[in-house]
């Protein structure tokens, strides 16, 4: 986990990083995690217990899934997907709402499909029509969330007990299923971004759109697919949350887009494309998870979470920008 690779660079498209910035970039995330763990161990005896750590990971693995998808969006230069809460809600509401009609498992799949379709709409708008991602996803988020509320009449949807609900809220080998799912998706997506043609297309499109287009990279498809992936993972997050809670309401994903973006940024992937990796985002998810847990254990009010996360985003990006400028001058 501590073996953080430097982001894959495409020669000539993504500028090579040099000097202190590169070294710092590689070791800063493990250091931050170690520091947070040490602070936690010192301040609270209940921090370094398996149950606490598993709880922390469990609570953050669903939003972590979205952060993994958001990494692709960021890397390909798609800025951010702000329609995440809508796709989470769509996934969750349909997974429970369609249960009486089609059964638990088909309903869950239907939820995933609809959320993915939400991602397809984003992908067409951003990738093919080249609309600014912030505007496009604000619009689709507003529409999809409204539609999902319209379909269920604005209230809460309750699920009935089912085998799949028991499965996702259970655990295997002492580790909750949520964590397994997050780890497996991360293990799949890490090589997809760093080793496959699709991953390199993402880095290339984000690094230099025109050059990527001239190099026969299917730029529009790549950018679109990043949003489809995020839509799918948002849907997965919604389905998992809804099944394990046994209920879903349209606000279940509120704020998840910002948490996911924060994890991506803290991990060190650039929101402006061309630079980033899944392992970095996993690091970012761990850091945000630990911060949230420490805030509770130390006894700060939970409302302070945004304050501290925001400050850390600024610090992380500020330091990164400083070293980047310094490296550029040398």
């Amino acid at each position, binding site marked *: 986990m501590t073996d953080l690779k430097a982001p894959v660079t495409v020669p000539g498209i993504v500028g090579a990083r040099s000097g202190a910035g590169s070294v710092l970039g590689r070791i800063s995330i493990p250091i931050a995690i170690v520091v947070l763990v040490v602070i936690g161990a010192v301040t609270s005896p209940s921090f370094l217990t398996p149950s606490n750590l598993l709880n922390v990971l469990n609570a953050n693995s669903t939003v972590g899934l979205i952060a993994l998808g958001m990494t692709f969006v960021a890397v390909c230069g798609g800025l951010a997907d702000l329609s995440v809460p809508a796709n989470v809600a769509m996934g969750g509401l349909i997974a429970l709402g369609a249960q009486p009609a089609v059964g638990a498992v088909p309903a869950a799949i239907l939820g995933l499909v609809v959320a993915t379709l939400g991602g397809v709409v984003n992908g067409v708008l951003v990738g093919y029509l080249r609309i600014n991602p912030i505007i496009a996803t604000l619009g689709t988020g507003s529409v999809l969330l*409204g539609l999902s*509320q319209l379909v269920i009449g604005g209230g809460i949807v309750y699920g009935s007990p089912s085998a799949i609900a028991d499965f996702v809220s259970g655990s295997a080998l002492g580790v909750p299923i949520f964590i397994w799912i997050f780890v497996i998706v991360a293990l799949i997506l890490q090589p997809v971004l760093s080793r496959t043609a699709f991953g390199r297309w993402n880095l290339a499109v984000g690094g230099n759109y025109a050059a990527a287009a001239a190099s026969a990279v299917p730029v529009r498809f790549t950018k679109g697919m990043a949003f489809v992936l995020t839509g799918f993972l948002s849907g997965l997050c919604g389905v998992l949350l809804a099944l394990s809670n046994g209920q879903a309401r349209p606000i279940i994903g509120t704020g998840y887009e910002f948490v996911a973006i924060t994890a991506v940024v803290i991990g060190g992937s650039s929101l402006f494309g061309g630079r980033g990796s899944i392992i970095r985002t996993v690091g970012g998810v761990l850091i945000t998870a630990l911060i949230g847990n420490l805030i509770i254990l130390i006894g700060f009010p939970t409302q302070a979470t945004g304050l*501290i996360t925001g400050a850390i985003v600024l610090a992380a990006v500020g330091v990164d920008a400083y070293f980047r400028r310094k490296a550029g001058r040398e």
Partner: protein
Amino acid sequence: MKRVTFRTAGTRIVQYRLLVMLAAVAIFGAVSVNDFLTFDTFQSVLDRATVVGFLALGLTPVLIAGQIDLSIGSALSMAGITTIFMQPIIGNVPAALAGLAVGVLIGVINGIIVVVFKINSLVATLATLLIFASLALLVTNSYPLSSADPIFGIPLTSDLLVILTPRSAIFVAAALIMFVWLKATPSGRNLYAVGSNAPAATSAGINANAYLFMTFVISGFCAGAAGVLQSLSTAAGSPVAGAVMLIPAITAVVIGGTRLEGGRGSSLATFGGVLALGALTALLEYNGVPSYTQAVYTGLLLILLITLDRIVSGDGTTTSRTHRRGRVAPNTPSNS
């Protein structure tokens, strides 16, 4: 030939979209609601659009400069809380000024982060959005404050002049002042130059950083004004008041035709966008459409307008053709 006429028609619709929208709302309103086309309706639409309108107005110079400010909602909440909290301590008017000052302060902080620390405005204001939303919840312990002097704010929404209430009059005046500044003064024109091409503007002797900084201060000031007006007229300071207003504000600016890419936009267009959005909302409410369905219409409208804008601007087709050529060029021999 067909293509040309379609494009011309599309361009016209996009160009006059505000008029098209307002006319459509007026016609549907007149048909579906009794007494829709009255000064009273207009007054209430304008009055209720004031808060989102101030946010949108502040966002306009930021977008013209090619930046974005996501923290305006949080700034609104902070300004509102400050105003209501300070009312019993320093009096009504100083409290309102304190609320404005908080908005300006948040703008200054955004400006420093963007200009001095060179952090992109999207990330910077995302962080300040989180920070000040969190701070607003912290200082109020998540409970809305109620005003010590609830009578003071009532005149703000009372009848002033035919279609104006005092607070909507302030908004109209602010939009006009900004229009004059943007269109008729050298500093306004320089802002467009900075937004179109910052390095070129710098080469031409314009201090681009100063302009960027200023836009964030203006945006903070307007968000502060929105917060003060909202908290005074509702006699409450809610820590989450601004959270739901970012999207309508951005929608209003985009309906007006200001682009996120910078270098284009106008405060009167934003005013039109605010009005069109407000009129649409009022029409839907009068027809008993639930609020979540309104979000569907607003979002669809946003997507439709921006797609039309992209299709007819010509920019889109040029690039897509280039890409198609780019995609086949390396492998297939060129046949032209």
